Each structure stands twice: as C-alpha cells, then as structure tokens.
C-alpha cells in the first residue's frame, strides 16, 4: 500500500514538473518572432 502511494506521489511530482516545463516553453515560444505574411498565391515559404 505504501509503495502504491509513493508511486502515485512520484507520478504526481513528475506531472507538476512537466507542467512547469510547459509553462516555461509556452512563454519562450510566445516571444518568438512570428512568420511574415506570405503572398496570396504562394503554396508556402522556405525562408
């Protein structure tokens, strides 16, 4: 029983750490420069 509770707590801590990583990455990504607007006929850009 103790082992099971310990396991659940460990997974919970892992989830919290993953959540914190996500928050950090999201704040980094939101400050990244956005794509320039491309011409209407373009399929896309590789620049």
């Amino acid at each position, binding site marked *: 029983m103790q082992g099971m509770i310990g396991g659940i707590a460990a997974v919970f801590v*892992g989830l919290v750490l993953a959540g914190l990583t996500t928050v950090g*990455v*999201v704040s980094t990504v939101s400050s990244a420069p956005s794509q320039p607007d491309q011409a209407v006929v373009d399929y896309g850009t*590789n620049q």
Partner: protein
Amino acid sequence: MRRRIGATAVRALPVLWPLALAVLMLGGALLPGYVLTYDMVWVPDLTLRGDFLGLGSSLPRAVPSDLVVAVLDEVVPGMVLQKAVLLGTLVLAGAGAWRMVPGGSVLGGLAASTLYVWNPFVVERLVIGHWPLLMTYAALPWIHLCARRVVSDGRAWPGLVLWLAFASLSPVGGLVAGGLAVVGVAASGRGAWRPAAWTMCAVAAVNAPWAVAGVLHGSGSLSDPAAVRLFSAQGEGVLPAWAAVLGLGGIWNAEVVPGSRTTWVAVVALVLVLTTCAVGLGPWRRLTSRADRRALAIPALIGLVLALAGAAVPGTVGWLVEQVPGAGLARDGTRFVALVAPLQAVLLGLGVSRVVDLVPVRALGLTLGTVLVLSPVTLMPDAVAGVSGRLGAVGFPMEYADARGALSASQRAGHTGDVLVLPFTSYRRPEWNDGRRTLDPLGRYLPVDYLASDTLVVSGVTIPGEDLRAQRVASALGSLEGVELEHALSGEGIGWVVLDSEASQALVAAGADDTRYGLDPVLAQARVLHDGKTMTLWELPRQGAASPRGSLGIPARVVLGLAWLAAAVALSGAVLVRGRRAWDTSRQMHRSR
C-alpha cells in the same frame, strides 16, 4: 475485482493514451465542419469521377486516395469520415508504436507512443494536409510487426497486405510502406527470399494504380529540377537541416513549422530524445534479434539519406527528377523521415524504461520517467488545440451548394465536359476558412472532373506544373477572349467555367493580376448558370469536342484497368482469408463453450 479493473485499464492504455493525445492535438478540428489546410481538402460529398482512377491529364498525385474517399463517403458523410481518418490515424500510430517496444514495460510503451504521435513530422504534415502520408506513418509499426512475422508464420500475410493497402493511398506513402515491408521480411536473411519476393508482389499490386497511371502520363511525370532546392529539407530555428531531420522535422515549408521548433527548445528536445535513445540501445540489442534490428535500422538510414539528399546534393537530385520519370517523388524528401520515427520510438521507449530502472530510488525513477514520457508534449506545447488553431473546422458557403446544383442540372440536361476552375491558381486563403491557406476546394466540391492550375509558387518562385493541358489553357486565358476563348476551352474538353470572385478580388488586391489567371474571363456566348456574390458558373456552348486532348486512349485505359484489378485482387484476397480465419476461430470458440 479491483485487480481485474486494473488489468483492463492497462490493456486499454495503448489505445486510450494515443486517443487522449490525438484529441489534445486535433482540438477544434474535431468540431462540426471541414478541415481545409494546404493539401487537405474534404468536401461533403466527393463525387466519383474518371480523374480519380488516373484517367485525367494531370499527374495522379491523389490516386487512389480520392477514389477511396469518394467511395467511402457514399456510406459515411465526408465530415464524419475526415474526423475518423484524422483521429483514427493518430490512435493507430500511437498504439502501433506501443506494441513495437519489446519487454512489455508500460512506461516504455507510453514513451514510444507519445513520441510517435507528438513529434514535428506529425504536426507539420498535419498542418500541410498530407493525411494519406500520415496514414502510411500510422501503419508503419503494424507493417513492421507483420513483416517480422510472415517468415515464420504464414498467418501474418493477410494482415501485411491489408496494412500495405491502408498505407498506400499516395505514391510516396506506397514507397515508404513498401520499403519498410520488404526490408522487414528480407532482414531474416537468405532463407527469406521467397517471402520477400511475395512481399514485393503485394507492394507492386497495391501500388499499381498510381504507378501505372504515372507511367502512362509519360513526359508529364518529369519534374522541374529547380523545385528540388525549394522542397529540400530546411533548418528549423537554430537547428540546421540535418539536425531538424534527426528530430523528425525539417519540412520545406516554414509556414507549417510550430513556433516551439524555431527556438532553443527544439535543441533541448533533440538532445533529450537522442540521449534517451542512446540509453535504449543496450536493451534493444539484448531484447531483439539482429534481424529485428536490421528491419528498423536500414529503413531509418534510407529515410535519413532520402530526406537530406535534396539539401546535400541538389544538383544530382535535380538531374534525376528532370531525367527519370517518377523521380520527382523524391522532391519533398522529408516525407521519408517517416521511416526514421519507428526506430526512434522503440529506442526512446526502451531508453525511458532503462533510465527508470537505473535510478536507485523507485519514487525518483518514476518521477523522472513521467517527465521523460511527457517530454515530447511539454517541449512542443504549441501542437495542442488544433496546432494552436492552425487546424479548425469550417462550413462551406451556401453558394457552393447552389453552384453544384446548377452544374448537376446542366449535366442532367445532357451537357458534358470538365469544369475549369478560375482564378487559375492553385491555392486560396478564403475568409470563410478563417484566412487559412488551402488548395482550391471548388473543383472537388463540384460533381464533375475539373481542370485547375498545377503551378506552384514557393517564396515567390514559380514552379511550372506537369499538366500540358493546364499550360495550354493558361495560355488561352492570357491571350484570347470571347468566342475564341470559348472555342479554345471547348477544344480542351471544358464544358463549364466557374470563377471564385472572392479569390479573384484577393489576387487583384495583392497585385497578382496576371492575365493567365483568368481573373475576369470574357465569355461571349456562354450561358450563366449561377451568378452569386462570390461565385459565377458558366456553361460553354457545345462545340462537339468533349474529350480533352491528352486524355488516355483505349489501350492505356485497359492497362490502367488491369492495374486496378491487381490491387483489387490483392486486397479482396487478404480480406477473404482474414475473414475466413476469423469465422473459423469464432466457430471453434462457440463449440468449446
């Protein structure tokens, strides 16, 4: 009782976990409506037509995927079918990756499944709309598992053929899946030459429709060498092309790359994945045979080489696509990155299991394992909610249905021919699609064969299409008007002309008012069938020439028919054998009760 519930949950996890990831990634794309993004165009009812069999004048890029959709949406509405394909593809991919990991570790399965569903390849191909290639990708783990079984267990044959058919809805998909299958069988050594030969036959049969249609188009299957550089693997942010490809990214189109891939986060993700994969090498050698390892490593190496060829030796690849019919398939080389993913997923799964085992404190190991399992998601969080809103479901304007109805009535009255879709450009950014770029959906929405431009523009550089008929029509649009234009169009087998006024106005506003786009065609004697706010449909006067120049003759049609027959025989044979076996098994179980 509690133990039984726990066991059921663990058994369902390989499906439930990728399902959760898929729902998280697709987000708004699963709401009512159609997802139109770049090359992914689904309509309410895709009418079966000759071009879907490879009979048209353009290269058979959507053979046989269009035919399969046109048949299936007679039973399931197009909107539901699209959701099922997108969701089912990701679930199958994740479940297959889980099953490939030897050793039975739940954490290992979770890690492999997460990476296989949540990586740049899936996200970028989803946004650019390459759903048949994603179906191939989803089938790869299953093809690998079947291919490794057929040498020793003949019962795996029907499964292998069915997965190959599932994976071969597009030309590149067929090559990727076929390559993995053949190498997977041949990896068993000399004794496997007979099963390997049969696998090649199965690959040839399920790919025959597009391959034969492509060959019958002759010189049209040669491509512009200048396009190789434009479609080659690209770096992402600080990652050079080779590193982006190792991280399962590197697509040519920077527009579809998630923002997180353009920051230092992509470097962290790459280092983390490769390091964990390196840790997984030891268990992989211990738990698998040499043949199993060859079956994954050789295709991964081939995938890497093909993905980087356009960037490393553009001159050589350019010469190939210009001289060798069909070599243009290697133009967008990063599609072959799909072959790298199964190996990475297996190694990552084994690596995570090993890391958890190595940590002396169990709780700490589990914490680390959880972080590693979720790392593909946490390091690319902008793939959530329809890739941060890049995928969304929309409804078609009512005028689409009105134009379709008017054209159908004209068709019932005996008018024939193809419909010419104007403006004569390939891509649109309709306001009703929230400004998202999409291949023009109008031609697919209408119920007859259509002629649309196959010219592509990438970063302002024009890449001419291969369809000679389209080139002649563009020339006529640029130089003729009135009765002369109508005569020229009728001579090309055009029976109707439809103009998307919204797209036309957008081009004029952007200064892209090339006369060859047919932005405001002058048709003197054509009858207006529909004239609405955003669309005009004309019926051209009958000129007696309904068969488009360049369409296939009778002998070519017979050969193409045989190719379809080969695919149908292979597929139905596999279904029959599989069905018979399932029937026998259920009867035996019934008797034993």
